[in-house]
């Protein structure tokens, strides 16, 4: 009898551990311990995740990482999963035709938002793929005559990595520095252009610091020198007005999941007059005009189209609302604590991205305390390497300040209550950490930290 109870208990414990093992998933984001993960242990008093107990799901202030799908977008997508599930490239039957019609409708919705023609839009799996096609595809196509690429130091990792790949193949790449406010110096850009420059790539809105580059001026320069201009507009789509004619862009990368659309879809804008040609990175049946082979995922494309249409209608209202919330957040924090620095230009910035540095407080420890708010940091400890964010470093932020930055993202669904609560929690944590900080103590005593010789190891 004893042995039976023993055996059943043992079995129960072993299977429970096995189940726990299979549930653990890797997290690569830098959000606090209360980040999203499948099947947290829920009990009556709240959620326990990774040894941390919080009262409910955290406030989401990381919209630059991804955004929730707008329910209206979801409504538009659902029929294409279960009833209108045809492959848009099936030419022989009704399912294919209706699917194709939906994809073309989505294509024109995306095109209208950026001022382009639907024939110039190619659906991809996301902005990363679009960036890859733009950079590697263009340079490989024109490799006989053009050997040089210009980009900036604050680009997204996929752009920088594609450029590094090109460097290994023998191309030259110039990484333009940025000013301390994050903007590109136009004179330096002009000086960098060579006769064999094949592409200039400057992102529209930076994902870490939110600055908006002077794209119209850059477009003018590129037109003057007749160099194709590519921009990564993943963070800009649906947030600032985009006009491909005004900006004179030849290529533009777009992302679905940053504008309240589904993850796994994006688009690439390719100018037709004058035509920019690319070497395809995905070979296959020649879909999407031969640029990107593979079945276009109808529900995802429809979702992206619906998201773009909504963004078109609500861009103004969202912008005004988000600006007000940003002011509320910044003033709320500045009223209560000092030593708060905004990273990046305040004037030329997208309101929904606020990157703050709190002096004398380290970013990861602050995130650990902000368990109930989902935000991101540019601190070394939160990246896999011990390097602080390269974007902040390119701004010339002092290394000790780079370790202290937090990025707050405000979106369409962020409420005033969430902002107030985030302010309250942030201020509380910063004050607590400053109590624990030797640097703050030294500053209060009047010692200049920059003069100290640190005992490195």
């Amino acid at each position, binding site marked *: 009898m004893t042995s039976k109870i023993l055996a059943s208990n043992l079995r*129960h414990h072993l299977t429970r551990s096995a189940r726990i093992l299979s549930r*653990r998933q890797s997290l690569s984001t830098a959000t606090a311990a209360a980040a999203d993960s499948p099947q947290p242990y829920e009990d009556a008093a709240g959620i326990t995740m990774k040894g941390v107990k919080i009262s409910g799901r955290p406030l989401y202030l990381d919209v630059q990482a991804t955004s929730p799908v707008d329910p209206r977008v979801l409504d538009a997508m659902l029929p294409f999963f279960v009833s209108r599930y045809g492959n848009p490239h099936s030419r022989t039957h009704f399912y294919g035709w209706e699917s194709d019609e939906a994809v073309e409708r989505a294509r024109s919705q995306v095109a209208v938002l950026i001022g382009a023609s639907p024939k110039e839009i190619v659906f991809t799996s996301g902005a990363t793929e679009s960036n890859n096609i733009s950079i590697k595809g263009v340079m490989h196509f024109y490799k006989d005559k053009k050997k040089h690429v210009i980009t900036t130091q604050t680009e997204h990792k996929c752009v920088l990595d594609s450029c590094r790949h090109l460097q290994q193949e023998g191309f030259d790449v110039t990484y333009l520095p940025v000013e301390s406010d994050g903007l590109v110096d136009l004179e330096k850009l002009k000086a960098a252009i060579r006769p064999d420059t094949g592409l200039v790539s400057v992102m529209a809105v930076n994902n870490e610091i939110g600055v908006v580059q002077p794209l119209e001026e850059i477009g003018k320069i590129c037109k003057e020198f007749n160099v194709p201009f590519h921009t990564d507009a993943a963070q800009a789509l649906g947030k600032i007005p985009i006009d491909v004619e005004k900006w004179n862009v030849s290529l533009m990368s777009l992302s679905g999941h940053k504008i309240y659309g589904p993850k796994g879809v994006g688009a690439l804008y390719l100018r037709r007059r004058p035509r920019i040609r690319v070497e395809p990175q995905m070979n296959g049946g020649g879909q999407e005009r031969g640029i990107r082979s593979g079945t276009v995922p109808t529900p995802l494309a429809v979702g992206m189209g619906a998201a773009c249409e909504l963004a078109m209608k609500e861009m103004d209202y969202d912008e005004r609302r988000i600006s007000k919330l940003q002011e509320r957040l910044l003033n709320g924090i500045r009223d209560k604590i000092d030593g708060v620095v905004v990273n990046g230009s305040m004037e030329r910035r997208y309101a929904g991205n606020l990157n703050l540095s709190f002096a004398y407080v380290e970013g990861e*420890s602050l995130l650990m305390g902000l368990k109930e708010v989902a935000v991101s940091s540019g601190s070394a400890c939160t990246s896999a390497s011990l390097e602080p964010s390269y974007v902040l470093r390119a701004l010339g932020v002092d290394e000790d300040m780079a370790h202290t930055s937090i990025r707050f993202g405000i979106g369409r669904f962020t409420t005033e209550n969430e902002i107030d609560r985030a302010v309250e929690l942030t201020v509380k944590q910063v004050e607590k950490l400053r109590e624990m900080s030797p640097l703050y103590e030294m500053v209060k005593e009047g010692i200049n930290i920059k003069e100290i010789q*640190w005992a490195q190891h």
Partner: protein
Amino acid sequence: MLKLAAKRLTAGTASFQAASPASSFVAVGRRFYHERVVDHYNNPRNVGSFEKDEAGIGTGLVGAPACGDVMKLQIKVDDETGKIVDARFKTFGCGSAIASSSVATEWVKGKQMEEVLSIKNSEIAKHLSLPPVKLHCSMLAEDAIKAAVKDYETKRASANGNGKVST
């Protein structure tokens, strides 16, 4: 009652089971705060400062803001017995750094100065289940202890020297 005994027995194996997934995930380098680290962060022990120039105080300041880690560890030593009676710390660093220094202050209390020099960073790391990427935090804590002891010795030597001169 039998069931209770059975549960206790299996609880032993269950905690062993629970420990190994944690360590195997730690080895893979996934982001995971051990509950001890979270505990030290939420309830830090011995945060604060002593007066630097007070007699019997040794201050160790190690690290660099550029690396993202600065630790200040202070020990209060009883001059006669050479025993550390109290310790305080202040840290600018991530959760693991804060926890490492908090653990360091707990472990030095009540020990002799020579004893604490033998505290190894690997022991601190093991106690907190630090992942490989965070081992430098425990390293810094060990350095802080050594620096505090050295500072105390230096101060005492110069104080004795001065004392001799003044009398």
